[in-house]
């Protein structure tokens, strides 16, 4: 259990053009359109708009359709939100209803993030649905 690096197969994940630009690359793993999954998606979007407006990317992976992706990110619980960037990798499980815990989990400090958020970078978030 001494691994510190993630085991994500790199080929399956689009690389960020700007690895350390302060953008958040988030991946939400769900399994079908369950109540928990839908709640998590809604909560995540709301949360990102509130705290990370304009500097986040969300990728939603439905494991029902892509079960092979579960092992790579060590997914057990559903839903799981993985913060791929900025490093280090973080995992948040649950429907993200507890905003405070999501903040802690994503390591977001509201004051710093508020300052970093500049109008130039504000834009629509890219949400991919595989």
């Amino acid at each position: 259990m001494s691994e510190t690096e993630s085991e994500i197969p790199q080929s399956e994940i689009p690389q960020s053009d700007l690895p350390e630009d302060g953008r958040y690359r988030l991946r939400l793993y769900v399994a079908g359109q369950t109540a928990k999954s839908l709640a998590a998606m809604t909560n995540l979007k709301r949360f990102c708009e509130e705290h990370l407006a304009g500097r986040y990317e969300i990728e939603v992976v439905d494991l029902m359709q892509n079960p092979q992706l579960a092992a790579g990110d060590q997914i057990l619980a559903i839903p799981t939100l993985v913060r791929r960037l900025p490093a280090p990798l973080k995992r948040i499980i649950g429907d993200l209803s507890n905003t405070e815990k999501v903040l802690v989990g994503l390591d977001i400090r509201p004051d710093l993030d508020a300052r970093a958020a500049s109008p130039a970078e504000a834009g629509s978030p890219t949400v991919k649905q595989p």
Partner: protein
Amino acid sequence: MNEPAAESGPTLPDSAPALPKAATGIEGFDAVTFGGLPAGRPSLVCGAAGCGKTLFATTFLVNGATRYGEPGVFMSFEERAEDLVANVASLGYDLGGLIAQGKIAVDHVRVERSEIEETGDYDLEGLFIRLGFAVDAIGAKRIVLDTIETLFSGFSDEAVLRAELRRLFGWIKERGLTAIITGERGAGQLTRQGLEEYVSDCVVLLDNRVEDQITTRRLRVVKYRGSAHGTNEYPFLIDAEGISVLPVTSAELDYPVSDGVLATGIAGLDAMLGAGGFYRGSGILISGEAGTGKTMVCASLVDAACARGERCLAFVFEESGAQIVRNARSVGLDLGRHVESGLLRYEAARPSLYGLEMHLARMQRDIDRFRPDLVVVDPLSALRGPDAELQATVLRMADLLKSRGITAVFTSLREDGSLGRDGDIGVSSLMDAWIKLLNVEANGERSRTLYLIKARGMSHSNQVREFAMSREGLQLVDAYIGPAGVLTGTARAVQEAEEAAAALRRAQENRRRQREAERRRRSLERQIDELRADLDALAGEEAILLDEDERREAALESERDARAVRRGG
């Protein structure tokens, strides 16, 4: 390894319902459980750290993939796939190869509490998806979850976990997967998280105990729903050959019995036995103190067997094979040629090298591989251990050999044939024949004697024999039994010499008396001859006198006639 081990183990009651079973391929375990684990259901294998749970589970998967055509998924919650591959390589399993062939899939599930933040409702659907994906990818029939309890350290919502575990075991049954769930032994219950509550079809408990600084692994089938099973604790062994469980002993004594006779190579000993040797497949005990010649009697048996082209396997605990070969040369036995021809093999090991179980398991394996006709254990009394275990070990050893129809020769240093320090572990009653070698001390010398205490099923001499070892080989000499008692060695020689001298004296006396009688007879005959000669002489004289008388009478007659003529008659 492939042969069914059902010959030793409890027997299946006839009325037992036929529950589908998935063979584990673990020698002995399938015998104890009458076929293996319940097919299509989860079984719990629990035990303390280091007792072999993971190896048991891996063996189940590897055998499934290699022998029974059932691919398997190993979901490891503790070891990484590469660690697992490396660890089981020591058992001779090529897990990497099986993974490459798509017969086994390993998925390492990493559960790190510090990386997980819980922010609301969740379930473990991800685990199901991973498992389902791996199972579908290789068409798995078997799965192992090792150790699923790790989940409890990663997730804080126990209610969710327990609900999900229940769902998982239900899912396993639904999919018809034969599963092994491993669990760490907990205080007061079989597993820390009470997994036995969920997996109730079959529970196997592994144990690793240290007694007298020797570790023995044991296995017990705690429960097996819907099936009979052996209820004892069975020792099991993990070594380079994998796992073997050794069912203690069969209750029946239903060995095939042979009428064949095995000559001992010692003419005098064969002569003592009504059948001209020992029965094949019997157990022979040779007891005697140090230096009474046990090993050489064994060597003689071995030499005779090898000379007949039979295979012999000798487990020796006090000497090396080479040493025995050298020593046997001094009594004119060339064992070296049998070793070279491959008919004879010595397996030498110090008794303290392994525990009794290990010794037994090693013997069983070697015997099954070498397939000998004769096995020698020299000396049995070198094995040390707790008395109860020693007794069981010897019993199983004898069983092991008898069930295979192998003639077994055991030596024991104890005169009474017992094993333990207090002497209540009798092995002699297990044996079919018992040769007792005894050193007799008298007149400042020791001589070896040999008794045949018993030989089941044949008449045998009840007489003591003097047992001599020389360059010419082993010989039995009839001991002197006479008015002066039983004499051996020099005393026997002296007594025999005295008797010989006395006999000579008697013979000489007889001859002298015969000569005397002859002489007297001859002298009498001589006298008779002389008298007869006198008689003849006398008779001759008598005839002459008679003749003269007649002639004189005639002369007188004629003269008288003449005178009458002259007178003018």
